[in-house]
């Protein structure tokens, strides 16, 4: 998960991804961030998250996002 944390911090260095658990619901990440994160995850983890099937809840916390990546790897 550290690799994911570094990726997220690269995109939004101002966000405390270890403690924020409502990243979407609190309006911390916007659609620009989400699309950037999807693109970086594709590059780093070779996992494709389809924007058309996007569930915003998966982006609320680093744990949710990590679980999504793991499920897509299978």
């Amino acid at each position, binding site marked *: 998960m550290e690799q994911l944390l570094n990726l997220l911090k690269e995109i939004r260095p101002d966000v405390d991804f270890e403690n924020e658990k409502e990243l979407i*619901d609190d309006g911390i990440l916007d*659609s620009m961030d989400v699309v*950037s994160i999807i693109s970086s995850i594709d590059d780093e983890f070779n996992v494709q998250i389809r924007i*058309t099937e996007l569930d915003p809840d998966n982006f609320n916390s680093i744990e949710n996002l990590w679980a999504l990546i793991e499920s897509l790897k299978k």
Partner: protein
Amino acid sequence: MKPQKINDLQDYDALIERYSGKGTFSNNYMLPGEVSELISQRLLSVCHDENNCWFLVEKPSGVSRVYYLINDLKKISLIECESPLVSEILFRGNSGSPSAEIDYLERCGFKKNLQRDQYAAILSTQEGCDPVFARSTDDSIIVIELFNSSFDKYSGDFIPQVEAQALYDSKSLLCCYSEDGTLQASLQISFAGRNAWISHLVVDPKYRGLGLSDKLMKMFVMEAKNHKCKRLMLWVQTQNEIAVSLYKKYGFAYTNKSTISLIKE
């Protein structure tokens, strides 16, 4: 290429599927909910060729916002559209300017417009003061005119006058008035989740140099606290150094997110 209306979300999804891949240049950050809304309002069009796809969104200001999926930078695309086109490219400050996309859009007839940076601050000990709101719908109209004459209409800043009543009712316009009741400056506050946004901030040129921006910032801080916000957010034009230094005084820092807009008229 002549844009055609998109009438079905499935058609949009099929285009995304067809034109998205590794190495695709894209500024399309629309999420499914927003796309559905645009389709239902018949505001979303598309034109495409073999490798490149362009989505057009009609904006209230009369311009069309352009989102692209570009796979062939050599193929010059000419969009037939009566309204001016504006395309905004997101980039990360630590990754540098998106020069390949800018170069491509310029070859397609677009011209560089302006660059904006996003700033954020954690709401904590910043000084606040009691907010003063627009006193009437007529004052809301004056504020809208001030905003629209001061900001770039191509970059989503334009506010239609029909929103005057809603802005007044929602207490979104923080204002400075002179002793005789003349409106001198205003800040539009908006809320998203637990973020308070500075949507617009303008001081009438006649009243600059009186510390009114600072006063509006203090009202903004107080309103954000009243709404139990955690974070303050804004976009600012990169070259507006006076505004940036004011925002830094209130704890704002660059979020590493910038956009450059290009227009074609």
